């Protein structure tokens, strides 16, 4: 029998050379005359160990990593395939980084071949849909409501309420749309899930369709994720062939069709109404609300629109019951969130934890501190619209309400660490610049305000007598953007700006002279 060797095909692992490692492993095995089977899996989420090689020895997967292609021959000679080569990390699932997680949504990611439907079913896949097919729509919606699941895209709106609104609409046609436009810097959980366990998302969307009476779904995927596109499209074809999608799912008489649509590099499409405009083939300009998408959404029909992780959390909720999921977490933040450790962090990767862990725990116990070895000075949580959090607030529990309480947000769970070399005035300027580049242009506070914000930051960074007045003007501008913008892009850009100003005022009062200010302006990419 051949020896099973596991190597990730996740984009992050490929970016670090996993493909070359897999080729080198096959080559070395042939030379040695050993029969191996290289199973391509999702990533375990321990990105600093990628390319991670796992060898199954007596039913236990022993890890080695990072293993570059160049290191393979020596490792194989030293007994890699028997698990005897020196440098082993031990059983991968016993590594503290992995073992201490609560993996509900990511239970299968990194464990199985993402496109092996039999392995998916053998590891609990489609249990949720099977149960849903035996229930009425209202009961499925109640189960999701009772689980306490809130929108994982960042807005944290109760998923069950959205579903209930769509269920209550009396129309012939309804849609399920998955928001896979994961544009926040520092986030990659959607990508990892779609590449590492696409059937979970397909199952979650199918359950949503069965629950609300929708027969057609779209996954709106950002163009920057070509690997996820391939994985999803292949998985959809397999699910169709095996009758888990189509006109008569597993003989239940229920119908659900699913299609992947590519975005085109517009951050604003993470906002659900602009995403719907884009799906309809228009400029992705934000819609006025009301009407809500749940009442008039895609093509003017009632539409469930949820983030990847929200939908991918539904199968486990249906399979194990609302109470099981609700028992994780704290306060009104129930269940788990896949946090993503990114930026200047030693052990970057994905950590799925129940709500309630602190930022400090994630940054140091999991993350191991900064990658550069210097002190972590600021952490941006929740993407480019999230606040910068200073060290004094690292003990805040990761809970939607607790973070709102300190003027920050949990958002999609992205955590970007910066060491003490960061210039927070530059980051505030960047936040405004990003908003100017990505604004859809529909409302004035966002379209004009962001450009004025960049100009103001340039003046503040250059220094001089007008600075105090400029800082006051910046605060007023942020107030206008926050309360006057149509959506979260203009409305939340002030969060990183104001938090940087509040927690790191010294960076706004330092004269940089014309040269540094010019260097910052040189990054200007406004059209």
């Amino acid at each position, binding site marked *: 029998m051949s020896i099973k060797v596991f190597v990730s095909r996740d984009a*992050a692992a490929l970016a670090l050379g996993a493909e070359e490692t897999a080729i080198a492993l096959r080559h070395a095995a042939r030379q040695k005359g050993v029969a191996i089977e290289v199973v391509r899996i999702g990533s375990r989420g321990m990105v600093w160990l*990628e390319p991670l090689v796992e060898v199954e020895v007596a039913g236990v997967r022993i890890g080695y990593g990072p293993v570059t292609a160049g290191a393979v021959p020596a490792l194989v000679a030293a007994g890699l395939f028997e698990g005897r080569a020196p440098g082993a990390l031990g059983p991968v699932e016993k590594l503290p980084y992995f073992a201490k997680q609560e993996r509900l949504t990511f239970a299968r990611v990194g464990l199985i071949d993402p496109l092996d439907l039999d392995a998916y079913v053998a590891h609990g896949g489609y249990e949720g849909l099977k149960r849903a097919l035996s229930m009425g729509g209202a009961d499925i919606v109640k189960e999701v409501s009772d689980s306490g699941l809130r929108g994982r895209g960042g807005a944290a709106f109760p998923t069950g309420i959205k579903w209930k609104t769509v269920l209550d609409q009396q129309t012939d046609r309804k849609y399920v749309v998955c928001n896979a436009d994961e544009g926040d*810097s520092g986030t990659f959980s959607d990508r990892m899930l779609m590449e590492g366990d696409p059937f979970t998302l397909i199952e979650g969307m199918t359950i949503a369709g069965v629950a609300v009476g929708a027969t057609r779904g779209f996954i709106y995927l950002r163009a920057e994720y070509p690997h996820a596109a391939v994985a999803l499209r292949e998985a959809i074809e397999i699910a169709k062939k095996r009758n888990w999608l189509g006109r008569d799912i597993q003989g239940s008489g229920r119908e659900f069709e699913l299609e992947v649509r590519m975005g085109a590099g517009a951050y604003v499409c993470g906002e659900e109404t602009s995403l719907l405009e884009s799906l309809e083939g228009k400029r992705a300009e934000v819609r006025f609300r009301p009407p809500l998408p749940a009442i008039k959404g895609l093509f003017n029909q009632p539409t469930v629109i949820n983030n990847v992780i929200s939908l991918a959390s539904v199968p486990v909720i249906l399979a194990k019951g609302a109470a099981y999921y609700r028992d994780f977490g704290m306060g009104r933040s129930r269940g788990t969130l896949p946090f993503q450790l990114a930026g200047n962090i030693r052990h970057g990767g994905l950590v799925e934890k129940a709500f309630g862990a602190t930022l400090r725990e994630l940054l140091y116990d999991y993350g191991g501190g900064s990658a550069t070895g210097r002190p972590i000075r600021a952490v941006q949580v929740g993407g480019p619209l999230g606040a910068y959090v200073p060290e004094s607030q690292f003990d805040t529990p990761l809970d939607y309400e607790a973070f709102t309480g300190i003027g920050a947000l949990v958002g999609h769970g992205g955590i970007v660490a910066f060491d003490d070399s960061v210039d927070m005035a530059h980051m505030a300027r960047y936040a405004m610049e990003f908003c100017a580049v990505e604004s859809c242009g529909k409302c004035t506070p966002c379209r004009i305000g962001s450009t004025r914000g960049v100009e103001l930051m340039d003046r503040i960074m250059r220094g001089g007598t007008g600075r105090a007045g400029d800082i006051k003007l910046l605060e007023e501008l942020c107030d206008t953007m926050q309360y006057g913008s149509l959506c979260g892009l203009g409305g939340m850009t002030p969060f990183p700006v104001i938090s940087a100003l509040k927690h790191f005022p010294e960076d706004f009062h330092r004269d940089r002279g014309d040269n540094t200010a010019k260097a910052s302006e040189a990054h200007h990419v406004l059209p």
Partner: protein
Amino acid sequence: MSDLPEAQALALDALVARHAGMPGPLLPLLHAVQDEFGFIPAAAIPRIASGLNLSRAEVHGVVSFYHWFRQHPPGRHVVQVCRAEACQAMNGVATEEHARKCLGVDWHGTSADGQFTLEAVYCLGNCAAAPSAMIDGQLYGRVTPERLDELLAQRGKPQ
């Protein structure tokens, strides 16, 4: 505006016909056109508009709205460098600067020899191995200026 050469016009019409029946066809069609030609030629817009029963202004508005769609032919290789926060936290600004300097272009420019087009992107989802870049659809992590030199040299850039 010159019309498309006949072979391109035929290819375009085939793409339009293939997409015309689907709900919300414009973005999938524009992706298909860019995959075929490398960009969206101005001369393609009237044909797309008439094929989908839209105005030319509507199609042009969509093409110009989305960063992903190019209105000019790219170089042989497309180099996308991430400018977002997680990459900046790992000194991605040095990689950005190096890319612009060594290719001798600004963002969205093409090098004088027509080999490399440089594009800014905002997050490639590889934030735990920053800074990130994508070249011709291939993703790379920990792209320091030195690593970028290696990757460009592999694609024939003289040192």
